[in-house]
């Protein structure tokens, strides 16, 4: 792998909270520009913490996290985070929610409106600008949350189980749309999930993490062709990979027990 194409690098990263037992140990990985990486593992394996380390929301106890050659804090402008919950401000309508990141950065109104319109079009919510979060379905709220992250034109998108609370249908649709948006924008993605099928469908690479402490136990490349569609889910290659990742995940769970 050429160093020039690396955008996120973790070297020997460990994390424990306030003298407690290690949550993550000895994490080293490199992600290429434009790569889609998923983390999957049992509950409490520290996969969300790993994402938060890359986001700069928390600091590593040992080791080094580099984002675009800088610390996560220095690279904050390149990063966007999509939380497990939609985390919308309930007192703002869709338009104002999507504009929040721009507003906090003091971007002028005209540019804000342009970013907002483009982002809402991408997630298929053009026309819903004046709706309030409580009037939207779970899937629509998640789309707004995604649109908000996209207004910043991030180089790196961090997604922490964003579709976990959705029903199967909305979930699969959003996965397909997420990949379609990525095809247009080319950001690098890190995706935390509990679902093997989701990890395989979305990713170029899946890391299986063990618990207590969280370690990278397996790395599975996913060489499925793009664009991936509903058809992809029916293909033999896809299903073989799901079986493969499931086996690795099961091995980790036995290992932890």
């Amino acid at each position, binding site marked *: 792998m050429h160093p020039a194409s690396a955008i996120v690098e973790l070297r020997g990263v460990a994390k424990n909270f306030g003298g407690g037992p290690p949550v993550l140990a000895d994490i080293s990985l490199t992600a290429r520009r434009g790569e889609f990486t998923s983390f999957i593992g049992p509950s409490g394996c520290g996969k969300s913490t790993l994402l938060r380390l890359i986001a700069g929301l928390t600091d590593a106890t040992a080791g080094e996290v580099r984002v675009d050659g800088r610390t996560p804090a220095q690279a904050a402008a390149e990063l966007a*985070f999509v939380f497990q919950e939609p985390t919308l*401000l309930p*007192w703002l309508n869709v338009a104002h929610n999507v504009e929040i990141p721009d507003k*906090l950065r003091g971007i002028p109104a005209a540019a804000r409106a342009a970013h907002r319109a483009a982002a809402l079009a991408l997630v298929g919510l053009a026309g819903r600008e004046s709706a309030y979060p*409580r009037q939207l379905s779970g899937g629509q709220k998640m789309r707004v949350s995604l649109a908000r992250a996209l207004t910043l034109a991030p180089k790196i998108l961090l997604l922490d189980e964003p579709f976990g609370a959705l029903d199967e249908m909305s979930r699969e649709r959003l996965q397909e749309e997420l990949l379609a948006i990525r095809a247009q924008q080319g950001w690098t993605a890190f995706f935390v999930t509990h679902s093997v099928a989701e990890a395989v469908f979305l990713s170029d690479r899946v890391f299986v993490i063990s618990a207590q402490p969280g370690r990278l136990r397996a790395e599975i490349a996913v060489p499925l062709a793009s664009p991936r569609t509903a058809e992809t889910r029916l293909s033999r290659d896809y299903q073989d990979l799901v079986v493969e990742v499931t086996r690795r995940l099961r091995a980790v769970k036995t290992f932890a027990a």
Partner: protein
Amino acid sequence: MPRRYYNVLLPLLSGALAFAVWQVVCLLLDEDHRFLLPAPLAVLAALRDEWPVLSHAALNTAQGALLGFALAVVISFTLALALASARWVRASFYPYLMLLQMTPVILFVPMLVIWVGPGLPSVSLITFLICFFPLVVNTTQGLVSADRLLVELFRMYRATRWQEMWRLRVPAALPYFFTGLRIAATLAPIGAVVGDYSAGSSAGDGGGLGFRAVIYGSTAKYPALFATAAVTCALGFVLVAAVLALSQLTLGRWHDSYAQKDN
């Protein structure tokens, strides 16, 4: 039965029933004891007869109540912002606020009258003291309990502390603030009447409702005393209704418990 009838008709019905029972009980009392419990019709008559005096007193009391209430809103909000902005400020002062909340303000009324003078100044000061604590406690609670993920979102986007306060914490605290405001609105007329009861007498201009209560009580005009209480209730009702309307206007579009049920 449509909801509207349910919510209007039933209370009217139960009120009328209570009114009738009360009137009958009074008629059953023998002549010598009738003064002990004024009959509702006698109270209504007193309300009519004393209206010129009572309405004037009500205006005086309303003035004190509103002034103290407004002062409490402004000062408690400012203090809540300070308390919410740093953990050390909260740790240093919050316990004492809780303690002060337990303090029976009424005990200090004689001193307060000496400090600020009788009449409107002391009436509004007492109202202020009674309204202040529920407001500051609720608002502070609201400001510090903004959703943790939303706070992280703001930090992620490198929001300044000012932005975090005004764009996140203050709007998130509004439902809590309005809870405090509703409590304070019920307390304000009571505070003003209590203040007026002990500090309004020498105010000139006939004093407020509390002062009328002192006079009616000492001259055994009990129907008029009940009428005074009714006017105080009405004052509180108007203030609470105004607060509810304001909260509906502010929170109606986004907050679940205030939102219109039909959408």
